[in-house]
């Protein structure tokens, strides 16, 4: 883990930004008072930097593509279907999977903060939490998709899910053509983070060969 260069020059903080100093001061007060164990912070950070990420969600999607019974389970009880693969807990307590079809494309946003399904996608990218995406995803989703390079047929309806409660949404992208007979592992390589947010599509098999 990258720790920066601040451990060996305690006397000169002039190179640190205001927010770096502010967060450092906050941590030192909370640690000094015994409210926070710095090793717990390390463990939290390591979890989301190393152990959790969109490969988890890609496994869910690949299994749904390959296994009709699993797909049906994901449709009717996504929380349990996802938990069966070991992806559980914080910010994924109440999951709903929404499936893209030729007629309708799903896209997820949290206009009010940064709600995002951590166990399957990891922590959200900066753009997901930023004002440009949060403001326009509900007003002009087709324009937002164009910024991501996604151009859908004009007849494809767009359905935006604003995560205003503790329910977390996972988009099931359409399975690309020409992937019949591919293993779940190979299918998972076609599933991008953005395709599970709805700001992207699954990759074509040629793209990963």
């Amino acid at each position, binding site marked *: 883990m990258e720790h*920066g260069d*601040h451990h060996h020059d305690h006397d000169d903080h002039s190179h640190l930004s205001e*927010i*770096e*100093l*502010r*967060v*450092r*001061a*906050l941590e*030192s*007060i909370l640690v*000094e*008072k015994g*409210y*926070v*164990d710095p*090793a*717990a*912070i390390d*463990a*939290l*950070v390591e*979890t*989301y*930097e190393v152990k959790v990420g969109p490969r988890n969600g890609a496994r869910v999607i690949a299994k749904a593509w390959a296994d009709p019974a699993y797909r049906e389970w994901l449709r009717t009880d996504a929380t349990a279907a996802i938990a069966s693969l070991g992806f*559980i*807990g*914080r*910010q*994924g307590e*109440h999951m*709903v999977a929404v499936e893209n079809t030729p007629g309708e494309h799903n896209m997820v*946003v949290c*206009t*009010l*903060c940064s709600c995002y399904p951590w166990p399957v996608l990891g922590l959200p*990218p*900066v753009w997901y*939490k*930023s*004002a*440009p*995406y*949060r*403001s326009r*995803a*509900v*007003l002009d989703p*087709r324009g937002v998709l164009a910024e991501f390079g996604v151009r859908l047929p*004009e*007849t494809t*309806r*767009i*359905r935006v899910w*604003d995560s*205003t*409660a*503790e*329910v977390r949404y996972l988009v099931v992208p359409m399975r690309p053509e020409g992937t019949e007979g591919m293993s779940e592992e190979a299918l998972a390589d076609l599933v991008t983070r953005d395709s599970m947010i709805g700001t992207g599509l699954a990759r074509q098999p040629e793209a990963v060969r």
Partner: protein
Amino acid sequence: MNGAQDLGGMMGFGPIAIEQDEPWFHAEWERRAFGLTLAMGATGSWTIDMSRHARESLPPAEYLTSRYYEIWAKGVEKLVVAVGLVSAEELTQGRSLADPAPIKRVLKAEEVPAVLARGGPAERPIDQPARFAVGDRIRTRTMHPQGHTRLPRYARGKTGVVELVHGGHVFPDTNAHGQGEQPQWLYTICFSGRELWGDQADPTIRVSIDAWESYLEPA
């Protein structure tokens, strides 16, 4: 509250800054701010709804010019002072000046996997039957509470259809203010783009929110 967090439908923020191969954190202070927020959340000193309200209570100009983990760090600062764990003077001076206050629990590193796996489920048993069923037409209330709410401005006073019924969920509007969980039925409500944005809106668009029962009335 009608704070800067309520961004749906605003204009003028420019293009979406998409970063290829984005790292999980962009600086060490972001790692610490993230970890501190979760570690302090695990002490049980406040609820997730109180956290969200602390962040959205930042003055709009400050909210909109702060990086996201900066908003989180500022939220923790407000909360530790609000619940009496740290004094404003200690934050200013950057060091502890008094004995610690009692705290419910302290998260240990070895407990992290279990605590994250447990998460914070928001579903609760609820006695009364659901007022609405899938397919019902509803209208969202027009309201502008001073405190926390999860009904975005763009979806107030709008007619939509109940699409999902999620069960009883903790009500953020009370839980953010120490008034208890007071669980209510939670629904997914779907609106047409034209209902939300007017006749010029793209007719192929639908938008849903998740809304607690008291946000809704029959249409």
